């Protein structure tokens, strides 16, 4: 069989990178007309920069204690004040972005592919496979996720990794449902039929022809979920089940600042503002991405 003929005849969907590049370019042009979305993107970009360059940006070390400076109100030397050990709160917040970004990325890296594969397999094969997989998805979806995460964290021992696993275990169903819905649409497309005609195996069709088409909407959905992930992670931290002291996890910082709330409000208020701004930015960016990338949604 001549390879040349095959290469000519096989109808290939456009490469994933090319498509992502094209839609990214379109998105950025449209974004210029959305000031709120732009602001969200800027905040996120800033967060990433802060997380990467934390050692350069933070004025003090995150765990440097100066007991003589304990519980000082915000001033020029300590822009957000100091906590009960005299640690600079701005520096701790800056280092804390690393923990937040790490949590969000780890959960997304676990949840995205798992949800995508379950959803695409269910949507593509249909029938009994679909019924079983979707029933499982529905069941996990009907679990109270924070409570279950609490129980997991309690059994596995507190820590950042446990928190990440616990959140991931209950965060994949929305992704799976979305990927299934997308693949139901795509599997009947002409280019898939063409690929099948030319003898592509089901696995090949699944991985190279259907899964890539679902990736953009999965990414949007992940962005929207990130705000929720941050809030759940912060809740776990607040309850003492996330990253352990002295690491500057924002939820844990609120928890320890709570004791001094009446007289030294900044200790608990500052990390809360950081959480609020971050999840706000993720929500805005997720909303904007959805409006821009999904024309069906933008109309309603």
């Amino acid at each position: 069989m001549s390879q040349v003929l095959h290469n000519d005849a096989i109808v290939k969907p456009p490469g994933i990178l090319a498509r992502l590049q094209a839609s990214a370019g379109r998105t950025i042009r449209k974004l210029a007309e959305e000031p709120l979305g732009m602001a969200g993107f800027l905040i996120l970009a800033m967060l990433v920069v802060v997380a990467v360059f934390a050692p350069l940006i933070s004025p003090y070390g995150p765990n440097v204690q100066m007991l003589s400076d304990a519980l000082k109100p915000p001033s020029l030397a300590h822009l957000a004040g100091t906590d009960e050990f005299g640690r600079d709160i701005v520096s701790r917040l800056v280092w804390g972005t690393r923990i937040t970004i790490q949590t969000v990325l780890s959960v997304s890296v676990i949840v995205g592919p798992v949800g995508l594969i379950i959803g695409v397999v269910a949507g593509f094969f249909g029938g009994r496979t679909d019924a079983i997989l979707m029933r499982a998805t529905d069941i996990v979806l009907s679990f109270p996720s924070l409570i279950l995460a609490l129980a997991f964290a309690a059994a596995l021992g507190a820590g950042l990794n446990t928190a990440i696993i616990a959140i991931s275990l209950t965060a994949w169903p929305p992704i799976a449902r979305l990927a299934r819905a997308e693949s139901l649409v795509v599997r009947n497309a002409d280019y898939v039929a063409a690929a099948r005609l030319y003898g592509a195996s089901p696995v090949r069709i699944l991985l190279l022809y259907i899964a890539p088409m679902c990736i953009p909407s999965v990414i949007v959905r992940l962005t929207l979920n990130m705000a929720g992930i941050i809030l759940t992670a912060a809740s776990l931290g607040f309850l003492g089940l996330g990253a352990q002291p002295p690491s500057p996890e924002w939820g844990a910082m609120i928890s320890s600042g709570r004791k001094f709330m009446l007289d030294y409000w900044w200790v608990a208020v500052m990390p809360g503002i950081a959480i609020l701004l971050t999840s706000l930015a993720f929500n805005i960016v997720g909303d904007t991405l959805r409006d821009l990338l999904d024309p069906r949604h933008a109309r309603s």
Partner: protein
Amino acid sequence: MKELSASELGRRLLHLLLSLFILLCVTFVIGRVLPADPVGAIVGELADPAAYEAMRTRLGLDLPLYQQFFIYLNNLLHGDFGTAILTGNPVSQDLSRAFPATLELATLAVLISTFVGVPLGLAAALFRDTFIDKIARVVSLVGHSIPVFWFGIVGLVVFYATLNWVGGPGRVDVYYEGIVTPATGLLLVDSLLEGETEIFWNALSHIILPAIILAYAAMAYITRMTRSFTLEQLGQDYVIAARAKGVGPARTVVSHVLPNIAVQLITVLAISYGNLLEGAVVTEIVFSWPGIGQYMTNALMIGDMNAILAATIVVGLVFMLLNFIADIASAILDPRTREATR
């Protein structure tokens, strides 16, 4: 309104039972399989081997896993969740005391979020792209993003410690505690039943802040969903017809659109109610509210798996029941969904 066929109801019940069974499997795995050394957690690291073995046998950990699971299920069916380390009481007894407190908080919160969220969502859709719509969008964006425990702490400092508008942590002031005999366990209801209006007002001043703060996140979700449901309807022919025959915009929405989105809204409200029960966990810590959340967190601190798992099962069960009820309700109210679900 049509009747739900028996087989349909049976199928949904079967799904509910299956979900419950899987939840029990998950909690069993969490409680018995994941912890590296459940015996050591109870007897301590330095216990002598004989005591260790005795405890291992008492817990039934020497049996094969499937037998352990069977015993576990059997105990649960008899309402036996084991004994709580913290209180020394049976966990079921502790939970039956804590659950009404959580239920009261979540119920008030769901009422608040519905009565604010639905009108706000309707208004936002009706006056799309106006000032009201923008306010609604910002309110719901912030509601989706705010950490509820932090909001609670800030609210407590502002409205209790500084302004003194509301009662502080706990369900009532200390000197009112234990006066009302719990009949329903809902303090607001019990105090009224006994005619203790003073306690009622005191309890109300205590519950109002946590309820509002808890309600906020749910309200954000309800507003957003109401808005998008309404926008879908506003383009429909029947709305245009109503407007054409001279029905005013407010009346159109209330008496024409609202009944049409009611089915979808019920599902949203049920989901919100479930989420509120869950969100109550962290809110209860902040407000020292003696509900399931606080009970569970106290158990977490000392690693009391019996109490943690029982609380997980109870909240999970209520969560699933709410989903089930919403499912049934939407099937009864909307015959279309009955055919749509396979």
